[in-house]
């Protein structure tokens, strides 16, 4: 017994087990040369990587990168008049400010996002763009910082948090009005279909903002107990999912004017946004339905047992669980919606990809096709990858699949 006690006490003197240190050579052997087949794979893959890196480096060093800064304004905002550019910047500042505000009020992921936004704008401001652009870009970091300061100071005030949500909701229409202009106050800017990358961003934001609620309603409708509602929703979802987006855009560009009275002629950009919303909502509905199906029946029964009615059960019990379960699928749909905005070019909208072709038509920039497409690819890559990264973090913080 005494011995046992002794050993028990002596554990505090014991050293922790040695952490496993894998020497470089053993790591190499385990991961790269564990068998002759593996060794061949390593050599082939290594050779491929070397060829890729050398080819890329050789091309990147000889490429005419000056095409990007020279046409940056055209690519990003298209024909937006230079003297009105402050409106684009201001809408960007509103978002940056709100990001900062939220990250001051809350902690966790939102702080990383706003920090990333601030750092990115500072890095961009260091790059050799014209001085005016650099000033405006640096302003983004400033807006984030101001927002953060205000949020941090007002953290204890509950009233502040409500204000924050209201601001986020309001920021969207304000931004749209700011960009487009209102009769009387701000001059309305013509040529809305030639705004370059702004159109991709706007299309994605409007599409995401609208297709999410529509998709959720469609999913609920498809699982409704009322046959008429179920059939209509199912028919809509299957019809849209069966045809390509481009055929819907074709329809929006030529047939919508036949289906609407002669007095109603929606703007081309609005038609494109309506189309992408209608398209994406059907896919969203299927993703949400997947989540709804994963909810066990007991959840409904328990909700009814505590006296909630159908609507409250759906909103308070079912949807939070269902949506949480399908975050990756929903964000995946957001990403593909954003990528699909490049198809706007099909109906004569000069978004980023389409406007790059007009640059290639310019004699001065002939042959810079690789540079432009790589630039466009990188822009999309960064934004899409951040979206999927954020979704993974959100999923983790909500603890999906851990209970």
């Amino acid at each position, binding site marked *: 017994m005494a011995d046992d006690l002794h050993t028990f006490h002596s554990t505090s003197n014991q050293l922790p087990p040695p952490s496993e240190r894998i020497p470089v050579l053993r790591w190499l052997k385990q991961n790269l040369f564990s068998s002759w087949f593996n060794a061949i794979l390593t050599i082939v*893959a290594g050779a491929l990587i070397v060829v890729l890196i050398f080819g890329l480096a050789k091309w990147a060093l000889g490429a005419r990168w000056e095409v990007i800064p020279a046409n940056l304004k055209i690519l990003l905002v298209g024909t937006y008049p230079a003297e009105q550019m402050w409106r684009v910047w201001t809408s960007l500042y509103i978002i940056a400010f709100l990001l900062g505000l939220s990250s001051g009020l809350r902690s966790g992921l939102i702080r990383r996002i706003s920090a990333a936004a601030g750092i990115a704008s500072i890095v961009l401001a260091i790059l050799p763009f014209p001085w005016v652009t650099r000033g405006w870009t640096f302003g983004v970091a400033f807006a984030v910082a101001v927002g953060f300061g205000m949020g941090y100071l007002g953290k204890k005030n509950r009233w502040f948090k409500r204000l924050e949500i209201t601001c986020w909701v309001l920021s969207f229409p304000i931004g749209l009005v700011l960009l487009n202009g209102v009769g009387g106050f701000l001059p309305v800017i013509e040529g809305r279909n030639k705004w370059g990358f702004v159109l991709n961003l706007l299309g994605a934001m409007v599409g995401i903002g609208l297709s999410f609620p529509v998709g959720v309603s469609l999913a609920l409708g498809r699982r409704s107990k009322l046959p008429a509602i179920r059939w209509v929703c199912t028919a809509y979802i299957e019809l849209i999912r069966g045809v390509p987006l481009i055929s819907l855009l074709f329809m929006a560009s030529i047939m919508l004017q036949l289906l609407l009275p002669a007095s109603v002629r929606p703007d081309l950009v609005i038609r494109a946004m309506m189309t992408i919303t209608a398209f994406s909502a059907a896919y969203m509905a299927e993703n949400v339905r997947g989540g709804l199906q994963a909810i066990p029946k007991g959840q409904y029964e328990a909700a009814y047992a505590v006296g909630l009615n159908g609507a409250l059960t759906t909103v308070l019990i079912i949807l939070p669980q269902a949506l949480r379960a399908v975050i990756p699928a929903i964000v995946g749909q957001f990403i593909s919606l954003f990528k699909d905005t490049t198809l706007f070019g099909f109906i004569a909208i000069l978004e980023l990809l389409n406007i790059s072709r007009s640059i290639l038509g310019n004699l001065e920039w002939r042959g810079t096709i690789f540079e432009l497409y790589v630039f466009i*690819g990188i822009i999309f890559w960064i934004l899409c990858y951040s979206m999927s990264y954020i979704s993974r973090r959100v999923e983790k913080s909500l603890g999906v699949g851990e209970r």
Partner: protein
Amino acid sequence: MRKKVASSHAIPFWRDIRVLRVVSQILFVTVIAAGIWWLLNNLQTNLKTAGLNISFRFLNNTAGFPISEGLRYDPTNVNGYAFLVGVVNTIRVAVIGIVLATVIGTLVGIARLSNNWLLRKLAALYVETLRNIPLLVVLFFCYFAVMLTALPLVRDSIRLPGFVFLSRRGLYIPSLVPTGSFGTWAWYLIGGLVLATVVYFFRRVQLKRADRPGFPIVWAMPVLLLVVIAGWFLASGNPLSVDVPVLKRFNFEGGMWLSTPFVALVLGLSTYTGAYIAEIVRAGITAVSKGQTEAAKALGLRRTQVLRLVILPQALRVIIPPLTSQYLNLTKNSSLAILIGYYDLMNVATTIFNQTGRAVEMILLVMGSYLSMSLLTSVFMNYYNRRIKLLER
């Protein structure tokens, strides 16, 4: 007395769920129907003011525009036939794209699970790059940058092994041409197919009776090959001859020509969809728990047997449904062909619309074609899915 009590407790009709259900459905259907009626009414009015009517008779008019590839066609053919050429071209791209994307996806998906660190990272790089770039950028890159800028002109074509020539004008490959004795050999081919089918079903029944796992195709395939090869020698002279593309003054002659947009489209679609399929394959294989592999090894199965008999059947169940939707996506995405000038059904339909101004009819035709293609693919894949899914007892 009793009656009175009952009536005072009866639910008023505006709170009776049975009444509400019927009323809400009637309301819903009325609103939808009214909306559709309004749209159709507008359509009719607009068509009337434009002096148009809906009729498919224009499909019998001469098309008058060229289509450079696909079925045999010339501009004097009718619109309806031109549309058919477009449909066949879409199917051609979709089938070849699906096969290539599946091969790429499977290889990359397995590579992502390899125990070779370098290969794993390389596969991850491929998947993450392609999944975060719009398909149209990939297609434009393949077509305008790779095919039309980076490749040499036709007289300096890149020669690949096996008489394959790659240049800005597309891909020239050898083709098989039937000769005089093809007719005789075709009978052997049909006979071989019939015999192989009989053997296949015989073996299937036999395996089922013995309650043994196995693939009947292992017996059927050699039978088919044996008959076909025997027929090749028994028929007088070679039934098929190889037509090799040869560079003449301005272009290649002979062989089979795959146009530049076609090659770019297949390349772009299959690499892009391949990245998605790779993720599906990876998820399917990781979904099979490790215990399954360990148990199979403990039973003494060889590595290949473990993969074939234990992992694959279980992984396929997870893989097939999302794979189906990727196949459908690829088919629908092939409509982007119009933006790089390949004559698929969307492109032909747009051309016919531009020539005839028949918007409603062309949209109905396009959507009908895509819907039926989607339906056919999903019916086939659902049938396959039902065959391999878990039989729960």
